[in-house]
């Protein structure tokens, strides 16, 4: 296998991905948003931890109505035996994208 050094990435024009993660109150897309995160492939914004107290959308469906495209959702998994009452990560994670011309 030949390893080559990739050309430096330069900002150019084309499509860039904006990503939004919404955590909902249950596994239905019309459930209320309880947590969120965002990342901007255009570089225009730099979302980070603790930058807002209000969610960008009240529900997952609101994000769809605003043009976000769902590309991943958490599967529903039963608890492991013996750990039925353990809590850990938020369960109902939905990833959305927008493709933006830059």
């Amino acid at each position, binding site marked *: 296998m030949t390893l080559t050094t990739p050309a430096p990435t330069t900002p150019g024009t084309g499509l860039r991905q904006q990503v939004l993660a919404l955590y909902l109150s249950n596994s239905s897309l019309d459930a209320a948003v309880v947590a969120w995160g965002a990342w901007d492939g255009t570089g225009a914004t730099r979302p980070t931890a*603790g930058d807002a107290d209000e969610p960008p959308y009240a529900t997952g469906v609101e994000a769809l109505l605003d043009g976000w495209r769902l590309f991943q959702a958490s599967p529903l998994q039963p608890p492991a035996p013996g750990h039925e009452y353990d809590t850990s990560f938020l369960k109902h994670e939905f990833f959305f994208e927008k493709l933006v011309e830059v």
Partner: protein
Amino acid sequence: MVAVSTAEQTDPTLAEDLPLLSSPEVARFVAQGALVFEGLVPEEVNATAVEQLEQGAPAVRYGASIPEAFPAGTLGATLIALPRVAGALRSLLGPAPQVDHHAVHVRPPHGGEAQALHADAIIDARRDAFDVQLMYYPRDVTLEMGGTLSVPGTHLRQINESDIGRYHNMLGQTRLTCPAGTVVLLHHGIWHGGRRNDSGTPRYMYKIRFNPTVRQQRWWDVSDLDDPRVAAELDARQPWMEQASGRLEIHNRVLLWRELSGDPTFDIDYWVHRVTNRPGTREEA
């Protein structure tokens, strides 16, 4: 009980007549993972604290007693000697907790990135014990200064350090703003992070983590154990809680309260009784 002392000083958590926490206050800590004492530290201490913090945190042996870790005159000794601090530490941890470690956190003006949301140390599976982290803010903290982000009620969730970094914001989160001299006591498991400082003023925070050395049971003022506010505190949901797993949080708080109060029958809305009810044998049924 053996008093831990040096020639010059005694552990303040062993003092007589400390102002202990009430049962509703301890219940709030069990439910939210935090207690806030705004402006508790006197101004004369705040005035010199930054100068001490700028010198960093002297090395402290893991597991040191309080008098060993903090000789008289140090900022740590001064803070712990405040009766309300000593009383709260004794109420939550029991007498003579050990010092795990201490650290100075400084966010420079317009500097640094926000920390990813995290819980300190590594995943902690203890269900019947917890550490307490003291956070002290010697100066006013404004929203722009990037006060600590924390999420009330997350402390009983089993996660490992910064695995939750993709959660940028959660409903009900606290972006701490506080007056100088504020002390916050946190359950070790609470999800938190230092926010980006967008102001022109440095932000200082001093942290001490304490480990219990005794079983954490009934060290607070238990004369009001039957106060109805105990159940109300333990039953309070947080806005970030999902519909179903929010119920598990109540269940898990009940189990912790049973440990702390020594009352194996305590319950809220029958959550624990219902799922542990296995009467008799089939032959008897």
